[in-house]
């Protein structure tokens, strides 16, 4: 290390299932510069101090959603969190509310399994052929769903949501926001099928409006809004279904 280089300690919650039964903390002291992210800090550790350190990453620019982890107890993207913002020691741990696979890698299979269940695709109102050309959408129609389309599936909202942590049967904030994105798209006609999930206990009714999901979302998707708006709609639908003229 060059003389006078600033150093910082990264305390990682290690978990190596073949070697030890339980997770354990390990501290690495690394040099850092003003522009280094936590991800780059982990890369320094892996490259220079301990090659066995395991973590996910890809784009390093907050768009792929791979590097989500708990940094000083808060769900954050490692590539977008900077070492300069911490004093002395940064505590790093695998994303909360998911089983730890190894070190900072979680078992995300619950999220992946749920993803197709919300039907994250456009189901057209009627069959459409190429001669009809592209769909036209006004700026207002786009505005109805655009923010919810910004989700990068990073799962920080799942780490933020205590209801998901307490009961993983909950569909969860991110997927309900994505579900809402498709329901709100003027090209789509499958809201009826998706709302079966919305109306269930595992749907919006597991949410208690903690709101931390929207706080931690790196893309300002505001999943709390998507879930809680659908509570109002779901509650009204509970009564509306008895009205004549409904299916």
């Amino acid at each position, binding site marked *: 290390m060059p003389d006078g280089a600033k150093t910082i300690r990264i305390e990682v919650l290690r978990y190596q299932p073949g070697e030890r039964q339980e997770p354990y903390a390990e501290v690495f002291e690394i040099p850092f510069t003003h522009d280094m992210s936590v991800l780059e800090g982990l890369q320094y550790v892996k490259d220079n101090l301990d090659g066995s350190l395991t973590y996910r990453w890809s784009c390093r620019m907050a768009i792929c959603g791979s590097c989500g982890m708990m940094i000083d107890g808060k769900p954050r993207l490692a590539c977008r969190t900077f070492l300069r913002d911490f004093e002395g020691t940064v505590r790093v741990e695998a994303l909360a509310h998911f089983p730890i696979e190894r070190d900072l890698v979680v078992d995300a299979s619950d999220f992946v399994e749920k993803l197709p269940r919300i039907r994250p695709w456009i189901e057209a109102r009627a069959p459409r052929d190429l001669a009809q050309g592209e769909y036209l959408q006004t700026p207002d129609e786009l505005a109805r769903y655009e923010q919810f389309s910004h989700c990068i599936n990073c799962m920080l909202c799942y780490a933020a949501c*205590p209801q998901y942590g*307490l009961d993983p049967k909950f569909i969860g904030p991110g997927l309900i926001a994505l579900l809402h994105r498709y329901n709100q798209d003027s090209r789509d006609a499958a809201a009826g099928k998706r709302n*079966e*999930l919305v*109306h*269930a*206990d*595992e*749907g919006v*009714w597991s949410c*208690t409006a903690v709101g931390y999901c929207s706080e931690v979302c790196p893309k300002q998707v505001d999943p709390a809004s998507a879930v809680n708006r659908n*509570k109002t709609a*779901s*509650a009204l639908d*509970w*009564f509306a279904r008895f009205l004549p003229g409904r299916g």
Partner: protein
Amino acid sequence: MKRSSQPVFWLLFGAGGMLSALLGAALVFVTGIAGPLGWLGRDLMGYPHMLAVARNPLGKAFALAVVSLFLWHAAHRIYHSLHDLGLRTGPLAWLACYGVALAATLAAGVALLSLGF
């Protein structure tokens, strides 16, 4: 997937929450501070005046709404908080929470109706 039974309770929770958010503090001030301390007149909460209020249809409805909706709001929140604290929320917990709201609604309704108009 089975439809949740939550909506009814959530709407009651919302109604009670809204009513208490708008008037709760003021009600506490009137009935619990200003009233007993005589700041709005010594006879404000006296038996004759309160009887007259309870006999008035609007007064009756308001009193029932406050007691009932506040308790439905609290029941729903307390029940879900038990779950948040990691306690098992089986039928006994459900009854302890919502049962109080139901019993109170009935008790208040009976008491207010017994006073006549």
